[in-house]
């Protein structure tokens, strides 16, 4: 038996290593992005775009508001080469951030996530200072053409809150600690690249093929 023991140990360690690596890979491998829209993610742009920009954002964070405008500009410039995915990452320090995320998700129930996304960022300076944000959000819902009564009911839906929580957990699992955090083709952008010049450069580099998409 002792003669075979070293072989046995090596084989067992090889199997355990391979098994653990495989399990870890499966657990950490992000969902295929081509199914992003179908899986309830908030996607803007074509599924086969060579560059996917994922944003973890907080509607109450001022730099996120600036980033939203910048991403719009990039989408206009790059056209079908780029698509944008938004994930909620409401920070605890922002008192209305979660309510805003819920409002956006409630708008999604009527297929108007991006409209609510845009109006929340546009009006951020107003509602961020308000004590009661619900009336303001209902006003925004009306402005973007939602059925307000349904919007109010959807706000209380557990699945709406669950989607915000799931996004937050996803962000935490990917190392997100602040907002906005961007991933270009699933690679995290460095915090010092969050300015227009550096972001444009990173996008050009990614589009030049130096950073191939990792999702298929």
């Amino acid at each position, binding site marked *: 038996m002792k*003669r075979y023991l070293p072989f046995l140990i090596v084989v067992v360690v090889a199997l355990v290593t391979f098994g653990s690596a495989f399990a870890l890979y499966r657990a*950490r491998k992000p969902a295929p992005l081509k199914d992003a829209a179908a899986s309830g993610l908030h996607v803007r742009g074509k599924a086969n775009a060579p560059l996917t920009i994922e944003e973890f954002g907080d509607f109450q964070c001022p730099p996120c508001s600036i980033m939203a405008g910048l991403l719009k500009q990039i989408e206009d410039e790059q056209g079908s080469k780029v698509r944008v995915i938004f994930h909620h990452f409401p920070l605890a320090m922002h008192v209305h951030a979660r309510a805003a995320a819920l409002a956006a998700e409630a708008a999604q129930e009527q297929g108007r996530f991006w409209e609510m996304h845009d109006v929340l960022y546009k009006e951020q300076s107003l509602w961020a200072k308000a004590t009661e944000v619900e009336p303001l959000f209902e006003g925004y819902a009306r402005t973007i053409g939602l059925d307000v009564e349904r919007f109010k009911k959807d706000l209380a839906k557990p699945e709406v809150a669950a989607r915000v929580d799931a996004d937050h957990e996803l962000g935490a699992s990917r190392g997100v*600690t602040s907002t906005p955090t961007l991933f270009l*083709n699933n690679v995290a952008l460095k915090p010092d690249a969050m300015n227009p010049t550096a972001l444009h450069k990173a996008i050009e580099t990614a589009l030049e093929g130096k950073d191939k998409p990792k999702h298929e």
Partner: protein
Amino acid sequence: MSKDEQTAAPSRGRMILYSIAALFCLFGLADATYLTILALTGETAACSGQAGCQEVLGSVYAKVAGLPVAGFGVAGYFTAFACAIFAAFDYARARKFFAIVVGVLFASTLWLLYVQAFLLHAFCRYCLFSAAICFLLMGLVVATPSSRVSRS
């Protein structure tokens, strides 16, 4: 490696040293496997927001010929582990292989430390952990008494 290579009376001290080395290799193997999976899934952000970590794992030096450097670490640590286990069971040739593999791992570690310190000016804690393991393994190789006595 044949059974004939085994020595008659395995040195208890050497067996303990190689067992410790095997344990260190397992730590290194776990670290390198984790980094390989991060590289394969593209999760450079898994450093919990550590800027230096992302800088190192996302740099051009983190890949060789399109393969993650950590993958070579997995191969290296696994080979070192297998050699250490056989050496612990007194296979003479395994001791020689173990020293060679650890030497290669150590040289790679020195290069990667140089890259982090002087080219990237950033450190990754997982890489530093691996470097510490390599230094310990090298220390064990140096400390392990060599023996020409073989049994049977």
